[in-house]
């Protein structure tokens, strides 16, 4: 799986609560049988007008934010569907880190399988990043998963964060979950024998 260690990139603010997977990528784009190529579908209902032209009011179409690598968003980001197309669309667009106070469970899990870091920070710190990103289009943020720190160039933002050690390890090393589990084949065989399966 893809690893995530550290990135420095533009942070885009999307100050809405409960951003659901149907907004991240509408169902009509889930018909693809590929694992990549979802960048144009990301936030498509918000990014494009009915005639297909860009909506200039949407943050990723505004000057400074177009090449965002980090998204800072309101709570419960990624609620709704289990579609892994949601982190795929973010990743394909170039967004490798999403910062929020909270994420929906399935979306959160899916991110870790795709080299995308869903970073949970306390409300005060999310607010600080949101306001800075809104006030200063194009501002870059550095996110270091190994060192568990987020900062901007001026170091006005400098945040240490907590993350589950197992999840961090998997993402930093890009571990292949299936390969790891297959090493436990004896345990699985034993379980099946014990349960008459």
């Amino acid at each position, binding site marked *: 799986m893809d690893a995530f260690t550290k990135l420095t990139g533009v942070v885009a603010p999307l100050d*809405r609560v409960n951003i659901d997977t149907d*907004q991240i990528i509408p*169902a009509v784009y889930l018909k693809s*049988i590929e694992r990549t190529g979802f960048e144009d579908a990301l936030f498509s209902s918000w990014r494009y007008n009915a005639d297909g032209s860009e909506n200039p009011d949407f943050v990723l179409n505004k000057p400074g934010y177009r090449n965002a690598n980090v998204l800072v968003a309101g709570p419960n980001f990624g609620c709704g*569907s289990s579609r892994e197309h949601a982190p795929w669309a973010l990743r394909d667009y170039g967004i490798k880190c999403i910062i929020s106070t909270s994420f929906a469970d399935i979306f959160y899990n*899916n991110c870790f399988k*795709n080299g995308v870091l869903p970073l949970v920070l306390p409300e005060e710190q999310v607010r600080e990043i949101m306001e800075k990103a809104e006030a200063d289009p194009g501002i870059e943020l550095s996110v270091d998963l190994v060192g568990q720190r987020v900062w901007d160039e001026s170091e006005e933002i400098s945040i240490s964060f907590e993350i589950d050690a197992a999840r961090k390890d998997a993402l930093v090393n890009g571990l292949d979950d299936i390969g790891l*589990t297959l090493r436990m084949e004896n345990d699985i065989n034993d379980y099946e024998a014990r349960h008459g*399966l």
Partner: protein
Amino acid sequence: MPPKTMFEKIWDDHVVAQEPGEPPVIYIDLHLVHEVTSPQAFDGLRMAGRKVRRLDLTIATADHNTPTWDLSLPVIDEISKKQLDALDRNCAEFGVTLYDRFSPLQGIVHIIGPDLGYTQPGKTVVCGDSHTSTHGALGAFAIGIGTSEVEHVLATQTLRSFKPDTMEVRVNGALPRGVTAKDIILAIIGKIGVYGGVGHVIEYTGEAIRNLSMDGRMTVCNMSIEAGARAGMIAPDQTTYDYLRGRQFAPQGADFDAAVERWKALATDPGAKYDRLVELDASELEPHVTWGTNPGMVAPISGKVPNPADIEDEAQRESTERALQYMDLKPGTPIKDIKIDRIFVGACTNARLEDLRAAAEVVKGKKCHDDVYAMIVPGSAKIKKEAEEEGLDKIFEEAGLDWRVAGCSMCLGMNPDILSPGERCASTSNRNFEGRQGKGGRTHLVSPAMAAAAAIAGHFVDVRDF
């Protein structure tokens, strides 16, 4: 032994391995597969030279993309067809049992699992679909997973999963006439919010839940995910056993009786502790209608569209304003004054026989409003047949409602059934997100009886007065 909740019993019984510093590896008893979230998983297996570990525990069906028009007509959407063909090809290559578009056992994956007897108490069930929570109604631990995890389960029959916390949602009292399972779950989500259940498995308890049929219990568990919960569960009881007895893939004869004895031990022990408790009084509930763009934005039928100016919290106020703008609703509008263009009775929430009967009872002998187009989409080919044997199709047709072929249909509009921009729909599905039923479409979530009543009246009405 300390007392345990039902969830803890099932979880503990399924832990295959727990290495320090790694998530527990749990065994999966039933893996349901559909065409949308599986093609990339099968590709992954193919590239790594892996096979499906347990074909006997893996079942596939086609439901999301399938047109609901007559089966003699082709799938005309080329991309949908490609995805359906990929499922055919993958299941043939890997040896997975598939109920395709033409199978008499085809249907919405969360409807056929219980209906065919695959879903049973005490099982762990996964599917690449968030509404897998439905299966918890039978006392299973059932969760939605992403495509990478689908691949993981195909290859290993296990899942690496962090153990969720537990929440008891106790629904006391008796449900008034005309108020349904859908209204219970909408009221719960309205109370705890769309984030209220995150990180938790909800166990629904209490008199009102005990008195629900299996179809109703599945409606409640189905929408657990809309409260953010990892899963929803209801302890098995005589209702569950009576439902399962004789189903095609349930244990048969003496094996069934032995299974019931095992299932009886699953219920939460007296004195077991949940991490959280939420209580609700069913006797005070009315039919519910969502007015906004998430399932927590909901009001009783006697209520009004809220006024954002009354909301103190800034983020909530802004999201309410945005929702009302998207839904084209004015603050203070009585719910009953909202006019409707479309009706959708269907989806894994409400496309079971009881749901179809409830809708039919309301429209029997009446006529669909001239300005409304109503679709009734049964949850499976089997349920369609059963409904037709009861003559429900005739009742719908005589009332001017469109009786369709089984599938997910306009719940998410991956097939040709979608709303046009600006159209307003009373829907028995589970999500009213922006554009969910078609770009620019406006969705109000309701029970089947409430949808049927709105089809006749052309606007929302209290089905209890109808």
